[in-house]
């Protein structure tokens, strides 16, 4: 999957664990875990929501790279 993310990094900076981030984003903890591992690409809505939680841009959180 050519989508890379910095979710774990931003989560660490903000002192959040997956459970807390999941609660703020209104998704399950498993979804956060899947996104971090790169096993799931979030919807645009969820990506925007995550960017807003970390007070950053979607581009800073997610990067698309061709194989």
């Amino acid at each position, binding site marked *: 999957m050519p989508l890379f993310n*910095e979710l*774990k*990094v*931003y989560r*660490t*900076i*903000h*002192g*959040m*664990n*997956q*459970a*807390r981030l999941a*609660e703020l984003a*209104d*998704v*399950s*903890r*498993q*979804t956060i*875990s*899947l*996104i971090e591992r790169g096993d*799931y690409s*979030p*919807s645009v809505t*969820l990506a925007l929501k995550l960017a807003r939680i970390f007070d950053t841009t979607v581009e*800073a959180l997610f990067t698309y790279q061709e194989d």
Partner: protein
Amino acid sequence: MKLLKKYKYLILFVTYFAIFFYGPHIYLQQKDAIQPSIDWLFKHSLAIFAFINMMVFLLVLIVYLKAKNSVERYIRLFQDNLQTGFKSELHPKEVNLDNIDSADEQMTLLEEKSERLLNIASTTTQVFSVLTLVFYLALFRISTTPILTTIIFLVILSTSWAWLAKACDNLKLAKEPRLNDVRHTSDYVAFIFEQLDEAKKLAIYKASHRSYKMSQKFFPLLLITLSVGMNQLNFGILPVLIVGTIWIFQTVTYNIEVFKHSKKAT
């Protein structure tokens, strides 16, 4: 192995045919030798099945209790994790991911363990719920077990499996704190899917589609086998009709849903 994978359906098909053509042939040849043991098995089938059923129930109960323990630990950890937190002043490039608290990893491990155990418990529960009804209704007449005993066992086994199925469902829901509000509403089964988040919905879509595709391959094989059995072994037309009806029902309901969704999309 590659050849085996490539021709797996052909092999399955030939095996079905071989069983239906040669199985009864061998049975008829050695009928006198094996007849008493076959008769004994049929006569005591309900008692044997009840015993196996009880043993499996106890095993599944142990698996369920282990799953329950994992889920409870997971929920406790989840609640604890919601309380903890800190604010770091680090720049994203300065973060060392190796130093992150292992709570998330612990939760992932617990989650995987509980999912695995719950899947084993609920799959076995569903299989044995169906087997219990099928066995008792099909073998009711030929067994020598008294009617009252049969009814008591049927009630006990059915209610035990039904209770276990419900308990597994409750345990799955307990892991989802977001669904707590809708758990006790009357139409929660329909509502719960809409409440799931996007990754879980995708998992359900994938699982349903895969299951549909698999059954579309299985039904024709079963239908051909039963048709051969109908002509060669006097199976009767009823099994063919039942499997055909189920196949048509599944195909039609699937295609209606696909049509509804494609209509929404246009």
